[in-house]
Every structure is written in C-alpha cells, then in structure tokens.
C-alpha cells in the first residue's frame, strides 16, 4: 500500500508529498496478552505487567455496553492491537462493506497500533462457517487475496497484518509451499505479517514440513507480531485449539523465530480453557526470557 499524506509547511508554503517507507515496521511493543473477559476485573484492578493487549475485533464490533466501556478503560493504560477472525480475506464472495465499516469505526475508537486478521476464508455464497478455512497455494489465490488485502488497506487507510493459519488438509492443486504463498501475498499486497509460531508447528507436523524452513522462508521485514499458543496433539495430527500452555517444541521455534526476525511484538494467545491471569503472565515471562537470551547470544556473537 502506498500512502501519500500531504504535509503542509505553512511558513514555506510547500505541499510535501510524503511516501511512507514500505519497509518501516511498527515499533516493537514488547510482550502482550490476548484480552479475555475472564481477566477484565484483574487487569483493571492490578494493572499487570503486560506491555500491550490484543483484542478480538469482533467482540467489540457491537453497538455499546460494558465490553466497550471496559475496553476504553484498559485502552487508557495499555497499547492495543486489533485481531479479527471474520474478514474472510480469501473468500470469493465480495468483501462485506458493513463489516469493514464496523471494523473502521472500532479502529477509530481504539486507535490500535495495527489491525490483523487471518490468511484464510470463512465462508462463501453468503454463508459464514466461522472457521479459518485453508486456501490453495496457487497463483490465482495469491492474486485474489492480495487484491482484496489492498482493498481493505485502502478502506482502512493503513496496512493490515495477515496471520498464517493452522491447517489439516492440503489441496491437490497447490503449486507452492505455504511460506512461498504467504510471502507472495505479503509482497503483492504490501501488507504486514502476523507470525503464529504455534500454527507453523501444527501445520508443519500435519503436512510433514520443517517449521524452521517456514521461518526462514518469509520476508523478515514484514513480520510485525508473533503469536504463541498451545494445541491438542492427537498422535496422527495436531488440532489448533489454543486452549493449553505453549509446548516446548513451540518455545524452541519461538527462539528460532527471534533469531531470524529479531525483536518482534510477541503475545500469548489463549482462546479457550482460559486459566488464571497469573498463568499467562508466567508464560509471557518465559517468552521474555527466551527473547532476552537470543538477543544476548546475538550480541555476544
């Protein structure tokens, strides 16, 4: 996306067109958590040591009431990023204008550091399955998704970040790897990437690829955020449940991602089986330790 805000220098009388540097990433926010209703009171009362919170956009795309009032209070103390689940950027249905209007209205209220959603489709022919369904890795899909991301970015007036999803099937017609697909879309759409470390572990196991290869295969200058989460291992396949602590293998991948991408805004994303806040804070401390250890090693070498 190319933004051309006109900056007027009154004294000199010059209209200066500023083209934003396409590779200047948003600043590193540090270590955050997904904001969940179960933790509202504790967050408001104790103001935990969390650098920022991520909200599920749709939970606040509502007319009013307590959730928005609480969000306003938390927003006063913490940076917020918005993470959606219903943009359906890969669907062949037209983009939903009402949805985009509501998303923009929420962004105007929250002033998030960035907005993200998933590289997937959620339904077609007017229906919504409310699931993050996989796309085929084809040139057609690259062109289709990139064009829609550009439309969304133009509408919102900002770049968005797109997250890799966990998947359980591969399409017969896919003609490239997942990381080639993600990279091609990011470049064609000029968007950011949200790198879900757990999701590449899940998909790597399910589809027999080396998750380390994925990490090295995406453009590092486009990654603005990392997700860490747990999953359910069923022996022959892994289901991305986001309902459990981060496992050791994902922590190892996180360390590898830190080495490759450098310091990136990182958060624990728990969507179900929500534990006491302290458990998530402890996990976040582990992320901090790993990132610090990687940074120290990089400096020493």
């Amino acid at each position, binding site marked *: 996306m190319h933004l051309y805000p006109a900056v007027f220098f009154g004294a000199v009388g010059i209209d200066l067109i500023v083209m934003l540097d396409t590779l200047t990433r948003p600043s590193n926010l540090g270590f955050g958590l997904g904001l969940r209703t179960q933790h509202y009171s504790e967050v408001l009362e104790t103001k935990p040591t969390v650098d920022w919170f991520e909200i599920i956009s*749709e*939970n606040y*795309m*509502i*007319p*009013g*009431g*307590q*959730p*928005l*009032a609480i969000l306003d209070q938390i927003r006063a103390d913490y940076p917020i990023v918005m993470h959606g689940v*219903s943009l*359906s950027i890969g*669907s*062949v249905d037209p983009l*939903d204008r*009402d*949805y985009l209007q*509501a998303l923009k209205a929420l962004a105007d209220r929250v002033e998030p550091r960035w907005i993200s959603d998933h590289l997937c*489709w959620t*339904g*077609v*022919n*007017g*229906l*919504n*399955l*409310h*699931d993050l*369904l996989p*796309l*085929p890795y*084809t040139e*057609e*899909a690259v062109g*289709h998704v990139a064009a829609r991301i550009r439309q969304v970015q133009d509408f919102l007036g900002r770049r968005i970040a797109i997250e890799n999803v966990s998947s*359980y*099937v*591969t*399409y*017969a*017609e896919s003609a490239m790897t997942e990381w080639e697909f993600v990279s091609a879309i990011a470049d064609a759409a000029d968007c950011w990437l949200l790198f879900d470390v757990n999701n590449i572990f899940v998909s790597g196991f*399910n*589809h*027999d690829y080396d998750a380390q290869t994925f990490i090295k295969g995406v453009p590092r200058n486009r990654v603005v955020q990392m997700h860490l989460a747990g999953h359910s291992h069923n022996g*022959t*396949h892994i*289901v991305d449940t986001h309902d459990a602590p981060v496992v050791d293998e994902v922590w190892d991948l996180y360390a590898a991602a830190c080495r490759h991408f450098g310091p990136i805004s990182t958060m624990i994303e728990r969507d179900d089986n929500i534990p006491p806040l302290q458990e998530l804070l402890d996990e976040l401390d582990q992320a901090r330790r790993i990132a610090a250890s990687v940074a120290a090693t990089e400096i020493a070498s």
Partner: protein
Amino acid sequence: MTGLSELQARFQAGILAVDDDTALDLINDGSREPAATLFGIYRYAYAARLVEVLQANFDVTWTLLGDEGFDEAARAYIAETPSRFQNARWYGDRFAEFLKTYMTGMPAVADIAALDWAIASAFDSADQPALTPEAMAVFQPSDWPDLVFLPHNSLQFVTVSTAAAEIYEALSAGEPPGSMLPTEINTVLVWRDQHTVRYRRLDTDESSLLANMIVGCKFSYLCEIAADVVGSECAGMKVAGFLRLWLQSGMIISVSAT
C-alpha cells in the same frame, strides 16, 4: 485445475453436508491419515464452534436443557440455519423461534431462549444516557399534558406463555426452575440500566401504558388509558407513578413538550 470459486463452494458444501464427499477430491491424503479423516476435522469443528456460540448467547437455556439436551437442539438449529452473519455474535437470532416448534411440548424452553436473546441484545445495545426523575423539574404543570418520552434503545417486550421471568431468575441463581407449565400470555420487559441488564414481568396496566409511551403518545393520552382502569381522578397519579418508576429504572432518555 479447480477454480477458487468452485473449490470453496465444494469445500463448504462438504462441511455443511456430512454425506457430501465431493470435497475429498480436492484434498490429498496425509502421511498418517486419509483425506476423509483430515477433512472430518473441519466438519467436526464447524458444528462444535457454533454450539459454543449458541451456548454463549443462550446461557440460561443451556442451563435449563443441560449439556446433552442443549447440544441436540443446537445442532438441529445449526443444520437448519447456517450462519449468514459476519460476526458470530449475532448467530442465534432465530433460535428461540426454532425452539417453539422443535420442542413443542415445552414452551418454557423457547420462552427462556427468547429472554436470553433479549438480554444479550440489551447487554451490548448502544449507549444512551438515561434521565433521572429530577429531569422532570424543569417542566411546568401546564407542560405535562403534552409531554412525550423517548425510551432507551435497549427496551424490549418479550411475550411468553409461561412464568418465564420467574423461571429465568431461578435458573440464573442456580435454583430449580419451578413450574414450567403453560400460563396465560404475559410480557417480560428487558432493558439495560447503565451497564446492568434488568428484566421483570409486566402487569397488564403497565404493559399497555409503556407500549403507548414508547410509540410517542402524550402524557395526556396515557392518562386517558389509565382512566379506563382507575378512573379519571386517579389516572394522572397512576401514570405519574409509572413514569417515576421508569425514570428511576433508566428506561427513558429524553422528555419533551410537544
């Protein structure tokens, strides 16, 4: 090559219809599981996720039916009513109506579901500052006959055929629901007072006055309605009493003299 449109249509059809296996042609067998098993993860997750959505929106109905009963009813609704909502928050708008026919012999279930939906809708309705009774002090006695009132947007009438308000209150408190037998038709009022959603059964007199207030009838007309019940001498006080109650409850957002 399958175009993206056809691929998505077939993949979706395969999730929605468990006996539609044409989507399996689109996907590869995994190294440890066949395509059918892997595709089944999406089929399972689809219904499971929407059951969770309905559980969130119909919490007390879930309590009333229990896990198994709710799951069965929810899956029947999901099979009949795929979501057309971009935001899952709004999925379930016809669940109460569906339950009227799905559980014909138990009207309390549909009534409780209707209350659940109304309460959820009030919970995140638009914010509107309510007036207090003190706001009436600015009006002269001569203004009163022409006063009209604007209700809070969260205000809803839920028509039920059981003691739904009492059943709902008991279930919410973790107590047995009491009698769920059909009763005469009655109305439960649902609204949000600041950030607290409230509900209560309306008696016939208040229900009639409130319904007329909402559609913009003047205070003088409300008094005429009340006069049919309590006589013209007491009508003004009767309506004023209800008006004070509505103002104290956060149900009115503006008053003006027409």
